C-alpha cells in the first residue's frame, strides 16, 4: 500500500497500515518546522545578551550587542513562515483583535507583539549613543533615518545615559519571561494536544525551550566567529569559552530531558507502541540519528574543550564545528517532532512518510530562503547599527 499518490495541486503522503483519509495530506509542513527553529534562535541569542545585560557577566560583553541584534533580526523574520503557511494571511490579525484565549496560538500574537516592542526598545537603548553620533555625522537618506531614530533628542549626558541603563536593566529582566513565553508556548502547542501521541507530553514546553536556547547560543557562536573572521578582528576567547559553558550545560539538560521522554515512552509501552517503533525505524530514522549524533558528538567535544581549557585556533575551530552540528541537531529535532508527529497516524494503526515539496510556499526552497534572509537582515542591521564596540559616551563609532 505504499504507492505514491499524486493529486494536483498537493501531494498526498504514502502510508503503511491504516490512516484516516484526512490525514494523508499533512496539515503542517516544513514552514512549521522552520518557524520554531527561528524563534528558538531568538530565545538563545536573547539569553546570551541577558547574561551580559541582566546578570552582568562581564565575559559576554563582547557579544552582547551582537546577540541583541541577532535576536531582533530573527524575531523580525519569525512571523514570515507562519504568514506563508496561513490559508488566509490577510486575516492574521484576527488573532489579535478577537484572540481566543483557550488557544496557545492566540498567545502568539500578544507575546510576540509584546516581545517585539520590548526587543526594539532594548536595541534602541543599547545603541542610542551610537544612533545619536551617527545622526550627527551621516548625510542623505541614511542620515535622516538615524535622525528619526533619535526621536529628536541628542541628549547623551550622564543623566540621560543613566536612565537608558535603568531601562535596559528592566527590559532585559522582563525579556527573559517574555522569551520563555515566546518559545515555551510553541512547546505547549504540541504538548497539550491529546490527539497526537508523539506530541502529547508534559515535558514538551521544557524540551522546546531548552533546545531553543541551545540552537540560539550555537547560532550566536557561528555568527560571532564568522563576523570576526570577515572583519579580521580578534575573537575574545574568554567570551567564546563562556559560550561553550552555556552551550554545554543547556545541551546536557536538553539531552537528559529528551532522553527521559523516550525512556518513559518505551517503559510504559502503552497501546500504539508498535506503530511508534515503526515510525522511529522508518520515516524519522535519519532525523533521529542526526539529532542524537549531532548532540552527543558536540557534547563530547565541548567536554574535552572545557576540561582541557583549550584556547587559540583549536578552540575557535572546534567550537564552530560543534555549533554547526548542534544547529543541525536542533533543526532535526524540530523536524522529528513536527513532521514525525504527523507521520504517526491518529489511528495508532499506521505510519505515513512525508516528502516535502521543493518549490511553492510550502516547499523546502522557500523555507530555506526565509531562514537565509534572516541572516541577510542581520547583516544589514550590523551595517546600520554596528555592534562591535560598546560606544562610550561621546566617543565616535568606528564603522
Amino acid at each position, binding site marked *: 500500500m505504499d504507492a505514491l*499518490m499524486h493529486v494536483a495541486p498537493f501531494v498526498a503522503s504514502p502510508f503503511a497500515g491504516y490512516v484516516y*483519509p*484526512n490525514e494523508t495530506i499533512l496539515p503542517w509542513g516544513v514552514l512549521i518546522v522552520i518557524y520554531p527553529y527561528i524563534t528558538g534562535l531568538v530565545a538563545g541569542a536573547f539569553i546570551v545578551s541577558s547574561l551580559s545585560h541582566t546578570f552582568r557577566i562581564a565575559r559576554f560583553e563582547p557579544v552582547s550587542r551582537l546577540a541583541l541584534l541577532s535576536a531582533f533580526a530573527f524575531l523580525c523574520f519569525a512571523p514570515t513562515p507562519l504568514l506563508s*503557511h496561513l*490559508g488566509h494571511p490577510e486575516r492574521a490579525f484576527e*488573532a489579535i483583535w478577537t484572540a481566543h484565549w483557550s488557544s496557545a*496560538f492566540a498567545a502568539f*500574537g500578544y507575546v510576540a507583539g509584546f516581545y517585539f516592542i520590548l526587543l526594539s526598545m532594548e536595541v534602541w537603548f543599547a545603541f542610542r549613543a551610537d544612533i545619536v553620533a551617527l545622526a550627527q555625522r551621516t548625510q542623505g537618506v541614511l542620515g535622516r533615518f538615524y535622525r528619526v531614530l533619535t526621536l529628536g533628542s541628542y541628549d547623551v*549626558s550622564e543623566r540621560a545615559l543613566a536612565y537608558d541603563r535603568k531601562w535596559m536593566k528592566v527590559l532585559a529582566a522582563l525579556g527573559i519571561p517574555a522569551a520563555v513565553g515566546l518559545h515555551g508556548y510553541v512547546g505547549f502547542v504540541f504538548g497539550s*494536544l491529546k490527539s497526537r501521541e508523539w506530541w502529547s507530553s508534559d515535558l514538551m514546553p521544557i524540551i522546546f525551550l531548552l533546545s531553543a536556547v541551545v540552537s540560539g547560543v550555537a547560532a550566536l557562536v557561528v555568527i560571532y566567529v564568522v563576523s570576526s573572521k570577515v572583519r579580521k578582528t580578534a575573537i575574545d576567547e574568554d567570551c567564546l569559552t563562556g559560550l561553550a559553558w552555556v552551550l554545554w550545560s543547556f545541551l546536557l539538560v536538553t539531552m537528559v530531558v529528551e532522553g527521559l521522554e523516550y525512556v518513559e515512552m518505551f517503559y510504559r509501552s502503552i497501546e500504539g507502541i508498535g506503530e511508534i517503533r515503526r515510525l522511529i525505524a522508518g520515516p524519522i530514522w535519519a532525523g533521529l540519528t542526526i539529532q542524537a549524533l549531532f548532540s552527543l558528538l558536540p557534547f563530547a567535544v565541548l567536554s574535552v574543550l572545557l576540561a582541557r581549557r583549550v584556547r587559540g585556533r583549536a578552540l575557535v575551530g572546534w567550537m564552530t564545528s560543534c555549533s554547526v552540528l548542534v544547529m543541525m541537531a536542533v533543526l532535526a529535532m524540530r523536524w522529528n517532532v513536527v513532521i514525525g508527529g504527523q507521520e504517526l497516524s491518529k489511528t495508532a494503526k499506521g505510519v505515513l512518510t512525508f516528502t516535502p515539496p521543493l518549490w511553492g510556499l510550502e516547499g523546502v526552497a522557500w523555507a530555506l530562503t526565509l531562514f537565509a534572509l534572516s541572516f541577510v537582515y542581520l547583516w544589514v542591521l550590523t551595517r546600520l547599527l554596528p555592534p562591535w564596540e560598546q560606544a562610550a559616551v561621546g566617543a565616535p563609532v568606528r564603522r
Partner: protein
Amino acid sequence: MTRRNAMKTQPAVSDRRGFLRSCAKTLAAAAVLFGAFAGRSLSAIAKAAAAARAAFPATGPIPGYDWTKHRWAFGVDATKCIGCLRCAEACKVENHVPFNPHEFRTWVERYVYLEGEEKPHVDSQDDPGDVAAAGTPLNYRFDDRYRNAKVEKAFFVPKLCNHCENPPCVQVCPVGATYKTPDGVVLIDKNYCIGCRYCVQACPYGARYFNEDTHTADKCTWCYHRITKGLNPACVEACPAGARIFGDLDDAASPINEFIRSHPVRVLKPWTGNGPHVYYNGIDSEVS
C-alpha cells in the same frame, strides 16, 4: 581619533506640567482623529447595538428555528452498513467538498479479520487499492481484495465529525472561527478562519481537513443547512441500509433515542473527555 563633544542639546522643554500638557494634547488629537476616522457617534453606536440584539435573539439567528429547543445527535449502526459509499458521495455534492480521496467530511472504514490473525486489516477511501477500484476521483468504492481470502469477520464503519460536547478543535482555534451552537452542532466560520490548521491537528478522530478551495478548515456540519429546515443530513438520506440515524435527543420519539435505547451503543475514544455525540452500535475495540 579625538573625542568629540557630541552633546548637541535642544532647548529645554520639560518640566512636568509641560509634559502633561503635551500628553493631553496628543491624546485629544488622537481621540478626535480616531473618532472622525471611525465615523461613529454615540447615537450610532447605540443604534448598532440595538440592531444587533434584534438580529441575534436568544432563540438563535435563524428565523423560524429555535436552537434552544433541539439537542442533535447521530447514530451509526455498523451492523447494517454495506460499504456502498452513497453517503460519502452525497455529502461531497451537498456540501461542495473537493472531489479527491484526501478531503472528507464523512467516510467509511472497512475492518477485516483474516483467519488466524488477531488484528484487523483496515482500509478506507484513501487506500490506493480502493482509489483504483473507484476509477475516478468522483467515485468512492471498496475493492474486492479479500475475495479469495479466508475471512473470519468483517464489517464497515461509517465515520464523521462527532460534534463533541467539549470539542478540542474549538478549544485550540486562535480566532474564534469554530464554535459549538446551543443545539449541539460544531460549525466553522469560513469567512473568519485564517487557515492555521491547528484544529485539524487537534481533532483526535481525523474529522477535519484543510479545504483547498476555500483555504480554510472544514468538516462535517451535520448538514446544518438541512437540519435547521427539518430535513435529515444528506448522508442519512442517502444511506439505503439504515446505517446512519439522526435526531433530536430532546424528542422522545426521535429515531436517535430509539436507537440509543435499543442498542448497546458506545462512542469513539471516550478517554479523551471530548464527550462525542455520535453513538456507534456494532463496532469492536479495534475501531477508534
